[in-house]
């Protein structure tokens, strides 16, 4: 019987081709949209985590309250001891200290007078230790455009665009004019080791990356750092796990009567990222719901049209004694088969498009040239485990739901009328 039904589907293309195409298109669109949204949201979270928030961030409570202002006067002092303790007590987390700072990068001429200068947004990281996780976290070596990685503490990397606007190249000396943690003017000479391009507009405008030991010296922050960031070993953020970690740390270290005691906050507590994480989860559900609803309506309509077209066939089968329940079940089976084929094709196509967009991102950096948000300049999709079934299951469910709704007409046919209908 199953072979009979399948033959019917294959031979009567009006019964199979249009519904399969609809299911295929719907599944494909769902898989692609979901993967694309995951890519955008995931990128936003990943970029923020890598460059700003970490999966968890430790700073003094006073610093955390106005962290956007980079208040290094409120930085945590005693970083080495705290880092050693964190590395022994919280071994499943990668820990690294950073200083974010602002200043002016001043380029001298051959007489030592200012030739050019521009505002810099600086990030001091552990660039030189062999065990430093920063090269891996920030992927620095891969974003070098000119020059090389710094090998001395007074060597820095600056963004390629910034170097062009200052008219400097690797090997040139520049002076950082900033402010010490005590508010005094800070001057420190650096040599440009290389230029970088992260593909993130806000960083590529005026970024400067220096070794933390040099910046501690320049900004008079002995054994101090604005922030200590923590990352899970697999670099995948789990809100629940990080919230547990933060709670444990705060119970252990944070004191309510000392605003310079350390406190830990999670990624989702920063930069409005909890909204993004929540939306990221909601987007998948919304796409599926919309897809199932729209497809069901379309396929219900298609089913109704089929029923009208197959009015005589259904009437004959009922007249020959085929029970209504069996007929209804067989129509659902036909729809299930259509859904299965359409979903497999659609999911495969959706995954193929997503895979392409995952590897070959679309350059949208021109849209964010003046943005101050940490957003990647390349839009990429991301295929996750959910991508494999998010289009497939609704693709299966929608035609079945459509057939179930349309097939109810079978039960409204009057047996007494069937032969009359067949005679006409």
């Amino acid at each position, binding site marked *: 019987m199953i072979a009979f039904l399948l033959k019917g589907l294959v031979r009567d293309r009006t019964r199979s081709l249009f519904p399969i195409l609809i299911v295929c298109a719907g599944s494909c669109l769902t898989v692609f949209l979901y993967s694309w949204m995951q890519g955008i949201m995931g990128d936003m979270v990943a970029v923020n985590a890598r460059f700003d928030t970490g999966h968890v961030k430790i700073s003094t409570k006073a610093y955390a309250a106005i962290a956007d202002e980079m208040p290094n*006067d*409120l930085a945590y002092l005693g970083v080495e001891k705290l880092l050693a303790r964190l590395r022994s007590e919280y071994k499943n987390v990668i820990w690294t200290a950073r200083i974010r700072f602002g200043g*002016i990068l*001043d380029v*001298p001429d051959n007489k*030592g*007078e*200012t030739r050019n200068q521009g505002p810099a947004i600086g990030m001091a990281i552990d660039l030189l230790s062999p065990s430093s996780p920063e090269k891996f976290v920030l992927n620095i070596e891969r974003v070098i455009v000119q020059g090389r990685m710094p090998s001395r503490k007074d060597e820095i990397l600056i963004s390629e665009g910034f170097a062009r606007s200052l008219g400097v190249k690797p090997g040139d000396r520049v*002076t950082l*004019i900033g*402010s*010490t943690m*005590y*508010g*005094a*003017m800070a*001057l*420190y*000479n650096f040599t440009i080791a290389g230029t970088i391009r992260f593909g993130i507009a806000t960083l590529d405008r005026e970024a400067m990356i220096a070794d933390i030991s040099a910046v501690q010296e320049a900004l*008079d922050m002995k054994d101090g750092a604005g922030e200590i960031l923590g990352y899970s070993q697999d670099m995948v953020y789990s809100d629940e796990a990080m919230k547990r970690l933060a709670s444990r740390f705060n119970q252990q270290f944070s004191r309510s009567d000392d605003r*310079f005691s350390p406190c830990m906050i999670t990624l989702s507590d920063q930069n409005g990222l909890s909204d993004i994480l929540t939306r990221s989860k909601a987007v998948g559900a919304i796409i599926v719901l919309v897809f199932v609803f729209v497809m069901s309506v379309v396929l219900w309509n298609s089913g109704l049209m089929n029923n009208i077209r197959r009015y005589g066939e259904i009437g004959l089968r009922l007249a020959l004694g085929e029970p209504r329940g069996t007929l209804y079940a067989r129509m659902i089976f036909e729809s299930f088969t259509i859904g299965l084929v359409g979903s497999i094709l659609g999911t495969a196509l959706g995954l193929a498009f997503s895979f392409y967009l995952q590897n070959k991102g679309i350059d949208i950096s021109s849209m964010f040239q003046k943005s101050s948000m940490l957003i990647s300049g390349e839009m990429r999709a991301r295929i996750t485990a959910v991508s494999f079934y998010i289009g497939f299951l609704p693709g299966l469910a929608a035609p079945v739901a459509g057939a179930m709704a349309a097939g109810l007409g079978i039960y409204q046919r009057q047996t007494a009328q069937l032969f009359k209908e067949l005679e006409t």
Partner: protein
Amino acid sequence: MKKPVIFICIAILLCANAAYADSLSGRDILINVDKNLCPEDRVGVSSLIINGARASRTVKCKSWAAGMDKAYTQYLAPPREAGTKMLKLKDQLWTYDPTTDRTILIAGHMLRQSMLGSDISYEDFMQDSRLSSIYDAEVTGDEKLGDRPCYVLTLKAKVDDVAYHSRRLWVDRERFIPLRQELNGKSGVLLKTLTVNEVFKVGERWYPKRMIYKDVSLEGSGTVIIIESIDFNVRIPDSVFNKASLKR
């Protein structure tokens, strides 16, 4: 017969003196303050105790000044600041940092930055300290600060390019030293206070010995300035007030 006449004369003189003092206008008082605080040439050593939110630091410096347009300061301590020099020539301010061997012109928004992390900004340092040349003054009261009777003056800027658009001064009636100043922004909001705790006499001139500058927007208890020594009307060679002297 002679004694009562002398007594009456003295009484008349005292009354006249008191009447003169009471009849001083706001501008007269400011001119007296300027005469006291703005000598032509001076060389002094001072200490700044900068009381920040987390720690206190003491910076020692030696300054040479000629009039209001030229000033040269060299920091002597602590080691991190020692050797740093600042040169003011009219409306330009240069700083030299020995560790980087760079001379930087402090201009624009940098002028509003704190000097050495203290409650004093570079703009404060640059401001013409002759109050009578930039403010109109009005006597708005008489008050005692501690045991010192003071004129209370309200100053309004007569030029636009000024860090503080209005001030309130409590000027010692006898010594013509402002014992307290409230420095306000354009909207009238209080930005800083300057309180003189101790004065000393140098020659015939009264001069502040110890004062506290407090930026109300900053944490900490303010910056204490202690004048350790000061000499007036010292001849200072012109070569001191030269950019080349910064690197010497």
